[in-house]
């Protein structure tokens, strides 16, 4: 009898832990997994196989705090003629024809209380892969660095640049 009670308690305990693990799994799946994009753009093809430089599409990264997503006209420069029969290009063309913005899912988000300038980091000679990983090997972009404060401070310490609060919290 006592053994049965203990066994039941063990099962309930493990059940509770399993529910917690399931909760972690669902949270990761919904908020942390590589987001599905409206068009399955592959950096592996464009940056990897074709060897396009990051700045070919992300034209504002050297001039602005933001590394913007390229305009549709940039995509259509090539895809007006290239791979027109591919499903993803058909989707792109549909957005272009309907003059609709592509609702890209953001992968990297810096909190609002943080000031981060892409321009400053590019001018400092930092390669995009330091924060964004090996994009040339990614069929779908995923977040590979936490971009939490510790990550930033580690790099600032290593490079010997300012760790003053005001540098990033203007």
């Amino acid at each position, binding site marked *: 009898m006592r053994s049965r009670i203990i066994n039941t308690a063990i099962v309930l305990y493990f059940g509770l832990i399993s529910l917690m*693990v399931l909760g*972690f799994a669902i949270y990761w799946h919904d908020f942390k997994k590589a987001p599905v994009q409206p068009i399955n753009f592959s950096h592996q093809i464009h940056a990897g196989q074709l060897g396009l430089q990051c700045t070919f599409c992300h034209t504002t990264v050297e001039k602005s705090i933001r590394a913007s997503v390229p305009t549709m006209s940039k995509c259509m420069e090539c895809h007006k003629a290239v791979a027109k029969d591919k499903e993803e290009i058909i989707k792109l063309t549909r957005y272009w024809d309907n003059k609709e913005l592509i609702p890209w899912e953001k992968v990297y988000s810096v909190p609002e209380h943080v000031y981060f300038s892409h321009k400053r980091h590019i001018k400092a000679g930092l390669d995009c892969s330091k924060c964004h990983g090996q994009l040339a090997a*990614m069929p779908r972009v995923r977040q590979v660095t936490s971009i939490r404060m510790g990550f930033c401070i580690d790099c600032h*310490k290593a490079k010997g640049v300012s760790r003053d609060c005001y540098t990033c919290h203007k």
Partner: protein
Amino acid sequence: MDFLDNMALYPSSEHIVLLKVIIGLMLLVHMPYISILLGGSLFSLFFSMLDKREPNATHLRFSKDLIHLITSKKSAPILLGVLPLLSLILSFAQLYQGSDLRITQYLLIVSLFSISGFILLYLFKSSFEKREQQFSTHVLLGLGVFVAFMVGYLIFSATTSLMFFPEKWNFVYTSFPIFVYENELPRAALFLFFTFAFTAAAILYFFLSWPGRKEIDATYGDFIRKFGAVVGLIFVLLIPIVVVWNLITFPDVAASESVFAVWGVTLLLLLITAILFNSIIKSQNRKLVTSTFILFLVTFGVMSVNDRIAAGNARYEQEKLLAAKADEIHQEILAARAAKSAAATQINGEEIFTNICTACHQFDQRVVGPPYMSVLAKYENDKDALVQFIMNPSKIDTDYPPMPNQNLRKPEASAVADYLLQEYVNRK
């Protein structure tokens, strides 16, 4: 450790899979063994000290039996300890080639602590003979064993954890990657709790169920059964808390549906193990003991697989680039071989003429055979006939001796024929 990087070639994608299998198998062999040594030596020391405090024949007997059990095979430290560690160092060096993770350095440090632990273990065992006279030495040696294995395998679990954090690799400067980030603590606790729970299962198995065991009396057997089952149950129940703690601090880059699913399987295995431990407290059924031990080994294997999946997730892109580089080098090697082969098959007809034919022939005068200018006319539009004659010469003109067969292969004969006919045309 650049020399290891320089020795290793880039691994192909198939090679990467093979490396992961080797790593998984080595961990499955090595980690349970180290767990038994760590847990067994600590329990042995604990009962030895308990006996010293309050003399108890059972405690002292158990302390001695434990240390004899874990040191019974002298080859085990080499076969299950050093050799798997060396395999792991070489496999990880290959897998993490070119990365910033100083894995070889960390694992070499683990090896040093591990080897120290083996030496201290055997010294601790021999200290039982003079335990009464030199008790402090006996305790120090026991603690030394524990500390050596603990520090070494804390570094090991920290290194394993570091594999899930590629963003940290550039910034870990210390030789001991301990306590530089929050996931290390739950990983260290997981290792410790697993060690003690597995040691308890091993004690139950080797004392009560293993076919090669010594026969023991019922009272002693009951003591071992209750100790092993209670300790095992306590630590198995602590493991899930640490699993949750581990998942809280787990990096997103290493996570995937597979990782969570395998954690689910691990929890299921631990649940069954906990129920088995609880049953063993009351029951003397040997099958329960054997099942618990085997289930624990399976759980070790499952957790090892999970670590490989997580590390692979964290390094997915780097592994693809490594495999691409390996493919590139492989193609270069194949191209170089093809070029070499093509060069080797190009036959120089003029060279054969100079080395062989000129012994008997010239173009414009008789040497032994007829001058070429007088005999090649009939072959001018029939190269095949000339090739056939070169390969199978026959006597045609009675004024000349028969031409001996020069044993040329058809490509060689063809090359010579091309040269002769070209020279004939040039000289005409």
